[in-house]
């Protein structure tokens, strides 16, 4: 999902920065608010950030014969909301841009938009939707993380097609979707499974914090204890 340094015309770099900065700023305010209201949730915030660090460093092979990586953005979005996940995503993207030459400073705004905004927002919406329908939290976590990962890559493909609509936007979109989105399907599933593993563990040890953050309802807590 990293658009490489210099690979977007400057107008687009500016545009995506303008979209990303307010969201990250709002995310920072949210972090302050949440950690003030629920100081006991701080370790989970660290875990969410750490999860992004670990997962986005795992470059996995895919059935298409190319490599790509999970993003880890679903967990933070589900626990703390999409704006907080934007901040966590931005931290990792800066680390990778400066030390790994993955992504870049000029394309940082665009990369935050895909991995830090669209992915987490989709994950959060899907999780809330699944819970409302009444399915088990694990199912919601799985679907949300899969969507968060996959839509990150669909967003990258869209951003590149917008910047390089050659010969047409449609054809460019097919080309970039083949590179990113198709490769990503098995990896998105892997990310979904990993997110369920870590979430189950949190649910087992500290259901009280999840309840305070309104991730689960007391009913789900009892459900887990019964299993």
């Amino acid at each position: 999902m990293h658009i490489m340094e210099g690979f977007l015309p400057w107008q687009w770099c500016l545009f995506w920065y303008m979209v990303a900065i307010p969201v990250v700023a709002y995310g920072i305010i949210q972090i302050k608010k949440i950690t003030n209201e629920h100081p006991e949730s701080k370790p989970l915030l660290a875990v969410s950030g750490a999860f992004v660090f670990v997962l986005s460093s795992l470059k996995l092979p895919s059935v298409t014969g190319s490599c790509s990586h999970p993003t880890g953005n679903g967990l933070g979005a589900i626990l703390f909301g999409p704006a907080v996940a934007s901040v966590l995503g931005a931290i990792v993207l800066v680390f990778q841009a400066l030390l790994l030459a993955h992504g870049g400073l000029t394309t940082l705004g665009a990369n935050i938009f895909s991995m830090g905004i669209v992915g987490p927002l989709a994950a959060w919406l899907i999780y809330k939707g699944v819970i409302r329908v009444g399915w088990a939290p694990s199912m919601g976590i799985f679907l949300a993380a899969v969507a968060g990962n996959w839509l990150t890559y669909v967003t990258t493909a869209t951003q590149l097609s917008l910047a390089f609509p050659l010969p047409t936007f449609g054809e460019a979109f097919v080309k970039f979707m083949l590179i990113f989105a198709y490769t990503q399907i098995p990896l998105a599933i892997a990310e979904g499974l990993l997110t369920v593993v870590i979430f189950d563990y949190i649910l087992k040890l500290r259901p009280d914090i999840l309840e305070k953050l309104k991730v689960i309802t007391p009913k789900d807590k009892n459900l887990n204890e019964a299993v």
Partner: protein
Amino acid sequence: MVDKKSIILLCLVAIIAIAPMIMYGGLGEDEGYFGGADGAAGDAIEETGYQPWFNSIWEPPSGEIESLFFSIQAAIGAIIIGYVFGYYQGQDKERKRQEGE
């Protein structure tokens, strides 16, 4: 501490990661396999005649050093997760012990 569900899920992840290496067994980077999707997109863009207008201010000088930074990235994350979960695990144990008294 580790229940069956987690183990099954982790095995599935391992299968997802291993399957492509079996499917394309014997093929490697030289045959065009297992390159990064990010790089593939970069090549596709360069084919349109676009020239990147800005280069990374610093690049890892070799693949070895790049893997060093990726390992550091993973290690930072793993330490934090391990620390917090270990702490919670201990808290949980203590709570149960006190409840038992």
